[in-house]
């Protein structure tokens, strides 16, 4: 029973965060929201009895993708210097 409640709460938060990621004005907030969505997906993978997949998603989707996005954003903002 408690698994169902936790997964419902996670689901509502994930949909809200993904809508925020596509609608804010600032690009930094959108990239951070995509990282948070990846982290919540990793928690949901753990509730679905898949620890290997949860570890992979947390290490790759949440840490590496956000870092690559921020490197590219920094280069775009500094091109005219």
């Amino acid at each position, binding site marked *: 029973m408690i*698994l*169902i409640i936790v*997964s*419902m709460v996670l*689901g509502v938060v*994930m*949909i809200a965060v*993904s*809508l925020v*990621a*596509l609608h804010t004005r600032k*690009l930094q907030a*959108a*990239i951070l929201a*995509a990282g948070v*969505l*990846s982290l919540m*997906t990793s928690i*949901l*993978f753990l*509730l*679905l*009895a*898949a*620890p*290997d*997949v949860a570890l*992979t*998603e947390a290490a*790759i*989707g949440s840490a*590496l*993708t956000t870092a*690559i*996005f921020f490197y*590219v*954003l920094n*280069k*775009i903002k500094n*091109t*005219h210097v």
Partner: protein
Amino acid sequence: MNFFSVQGISLTIGFILILIGLWGILTQRNLIRIIIGFTIFNNGVNLIIVALAYMKGRTAPIIDQVVTRTDAVDKVADPIPQALVLTAIVIGVGVTAVMLSYTLRMYRAKHSLEINVFTESKW
């Protein structure tokens, strides 16, 4: 289909994330937001595949003292879709890195991130 199980809720969330990601790819004008939409789409697809491997009351596919070799067939979730999703996540990050390096070169050519500026391949 029982919508009040963990598998039902995860499948619904996965399909809604696919729809949100597709909407982001088709209507946003900033190039970085299109790539973020692609990332959301990828998350939704992986969630659907892993949710199809879950059965009620079962645990992770690792054999130790609790799940012994003889009764593993009744206690363990399906391991094949999990192996597929492991590959798919790593390929997703490779494709995102290639798309972002394309974005850098496109910005260097025209100094703008809007997609309406790049009209060379329109008919």
